[in-house]
């Protein structure tokens, strides 16, 4: 197992289009005045000033994949048929985690408390998309490292809480990724804090 790679600052261009899309904007349908667009862009920029995207990755071998269970390092077992099928043929996996930090959550709470939900919803969407973009970045980074080995990541990723891959697994993933080092805690209900934090798993193909 490689050591956990910690990324204290992930520099990504803000995914404006995805933020708009998350907020329900549809290019051919939604009608937006210049003032409304300017205000939304301003909220996105404000949100970005509160966001510090951090991430971590861990590359490890799959000891066993019997179609129902995936066993990785330290005999850690993920019981999930869907995950097992997703990782079929892979000899290694990449675990990854990312967070937008706690300042943005405080800013969202502040805006909500001050009756400014129109800003809060944009902050919320920006933080979600930045966190998602961070996972894209982590995958692109690992792919760039794998290229020399003639390997590649699966194009998609799988998260605890999806299909039959129980959210409870997030506890072990959080621990393995040492996510406390990037300021992410996990509750007894397996929810990551700060809220805009995510984990995911994907396969490494030969």
């Amino acid at each position, binding site marked *: 197992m490689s050591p956990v790679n910690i990324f204290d600052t992930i520099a990504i261009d803000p995914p404006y289009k995805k933020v708009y899309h998350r907020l329900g904007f549809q290019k051919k349908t939604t009608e937006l005045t210049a003032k409304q667009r300017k205000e939304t862009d301003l909220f996105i920029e404000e949100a970005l000033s509160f966001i510090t995207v951090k991430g971590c990755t861990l590359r490890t071998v799959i000891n066993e994949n019997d179609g129902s269970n995936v066993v990785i390092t330290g005999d850690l077992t993920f019981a999930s048929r869907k995950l097992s099928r997703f990782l079929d043929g892979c000899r290694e996996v990449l675990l990854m985690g990312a967070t937008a930090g706690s300042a943005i959550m405080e800013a969202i709470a502040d805006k909500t408390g001050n009756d400014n939900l129109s800003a*809060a919803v944009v902050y919320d969407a920006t933080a979600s998309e930045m966190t998602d973009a961070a996972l894209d970045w982590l995958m692109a980074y690992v792919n760039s490292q794998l290229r020399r080995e*003639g390997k590649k990541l699966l194009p998609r990723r799988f998260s605890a809480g999806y299909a039959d891959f129980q959210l409870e697994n997030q506890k072990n993933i959080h621990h393995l990724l040492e996510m406390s080092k990037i300021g992410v805690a996990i509750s007894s209900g397996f929810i990551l804090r700060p809220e805009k934090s995510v984990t995911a798993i994907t396969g490494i193909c030969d």
Partner: protein
Amino acid sequence: MSKSGGIQRLWRKEIIVLDGATGTELQKKGLPAGVCPELWCLENPQITKEIHASYKLAGAQVVYACTFGANRFKLEQYGNKGNTYSINRDLIRLARQAVGPKVLVAGDIGPTGLFIEPFGPLAFEEAVDAFKEQIHGLIDGGCDLIVIETMIDIQETRAALLAVKEIKDIFTMVCMTYENDGHTLNGTDPVSALITLQSLGADAVGCNCSTGPEKMLEFIELMKPYATVPLIAKPNAGVPRLENGKTIFDMEAPVFGSFGRELAEAGANMIGGCCGTTPAHIRELAKALAGFSPKPPVRKSIGAVSSSRGYLILEGNNPLYIAGERINPTGKKALQQELLEGKTSIIRQMATEQEKQGAHLLDVNVGQPGIDEVMTIKSIIGLLSTVTKLPLIVDSSKIETIAAALRAYPGRMLINSISGETEKMARLLPLAAKYGAMFILLPLTDGEIPQTAVKRQAVIKNIYSSARKFGFTKNDFIVDCLVMAVASDPGAAQETLKTLKWCTENFHSKTILGLSNVSFGMPGRIWLNAAFLAMAQLSGLTMAIANPGSTELMNIKKAGDVLTAKDKGTQKYIEHFSDKQNVMPGAAAIEILSPREKVSAAIMEGNRENIVSLIELALAADITASVLVDKVMIPAIVRVGDLYEKKIYFLPQLMASAEAMKKALGFLEPHLKKSAAGNKGKILIATVKGDIHDIGKNIVALLLRNYGYNVIDLGKDISTRDIIAAAKKESPDVIGLSALMTTTMVNMKEVMDTAKAEGIKTNFMIGGAVVTESYARSIGAAFAKDGVEAVRVVEKLIKR
């Protein structure tokens, strides 16, 4: 081999053929997964030598030794940290044995696998040390040149290049890896990297890996006009793709080889292959490039600065450049306090604001008594490299601050400034040369500020003469023509303008002014500054240090650019001022609406700023509060809901309208005989236990309030016990529950079961990202997919 010999002579005569992939070749020949490739190469010398020799046979003039990952951090993962030096030395010797004396052996340096501060945990100097350890081994092993490759972080690349230069003056090639979008994963583009690396002393710059040769052509074409050094292209054999779980590079050797000439025509001087290429690919490449005349760099020096994610070419007849002046604590108490406390929020804000306002560079001065300037400048440079793409000017009278900034800055910096003072020239010129920085030439001498243009010209010539000894050309500096206050010397501005004109017309250098000094001690400073700017533009000024937030100055600058024919086709001027005029028709159009229509339009448009004054106007026009609510505002907000459902509005518009409505209702409440708010029914709402996500619940609460419901919002992560207790106390008409996670969704059922057991017969409505209509039905609750639907569902439940 000396730096001036060998490869230095070779690239001027012909296109140099580099080798192909080593990593993928090693795997074909049995390198197992999970082992240290460098150590395996030493343990299997025959295989390693076969690969090198096969590239030599194919026509490669340079082979890369298998030292790509032989740094202490990567070797430590395999328990070989202590052997860094010997592994590098021995791998070079192995390559030499394989190819003999006629083929050049490159010591290959790859990334450490760690990120340098502020992106990761690795300190810059620790990275430099680690690279030095590797380089000592490479040089003692007898390498002919060094290759730094596959880099994605410009700061790590700088660390490696500085490490080489601080050990030996050896030919060094530097390649970064660009994705299809034309940036490294850390956001550096090829031209920014080129400007940074060639000025820092790289002998050849280029790109390797990531893309196939077709895409790499674009990167070479982008770099060539600005290159002072030969360019390198080492593409993959196409873009890897997954086929039946296997990674495939599928560009055949003849196709790959056919791109050789195109790359050379675009300006590449050294061409080879990266992942997926084989000796067959290199053979085809060598064949294609045989006899091809190389295109040398088109220039010997360049006036350009860069940051980690952007660059500025200071050449040609361009509009006036603005260096944002605001990051300077002089006269700014809040910034002074922030610097003393080690905080950065004002600096972050000043940087982003100035970038948005049109600054091309940022001047950064942290001169504040009571702080460690060296530590502060390093930390501010780290911060700004993540916050802005603009190149920085570091402004300090302290040599130590400039020295620290030069080492830490991930680009080509502009030093503010180097004067004719003996100590400054003696210490700063070598530093600027080592780091390849540009500098502002300040025509001051020891103890004297030359008052006249003639005296300043002499000092400028003298500093330039000293700078030339360090290899600087007129492209590498900008002359500060010295702005003095007209309050103390009425002729001061004239002398500055004369100096400026001389620099433009006779000395042929770029120029810069710190504009606002001219008006120091005078009233109406902005007008003096603006007039002075216009005059300076006419005299050929290149760059002004100014506040881009000043509308007057920025408008004068734009007008000046037009009048000095520097705004091509007057495009920027027209764009800027057309935008401003567009605001007017909308504002005029609203005037023809009736007071009712204005209130309705304000709700529809989410006009929170003006809704109250528009309601006051409507009330003054004898429209009663109840008519306004029932006949104007409610229909407007219902229409907003419809538009949202049809996707004509998106969420921020829905929220803005809801907020305008809320503000309006709050204002009208005292005017209504019986409050409209709260008389339609009482709703208890909460996010269930274990769930901290509440944005959706907050949206629902706001919309319900706007429709006249009395909403009691218990908040998030609320226990079943607390929800039941509130239900008993408040006797609501509907209880709304929200959850985002599958694990917390089950708590909705628990609340409902408990309510049933306790005899509470209230209707439940549930929603949230993972909640579905069928789940709601299965537990006996109504379902709402979003806030607008929640209003409709509540109306139905209450009517029932």
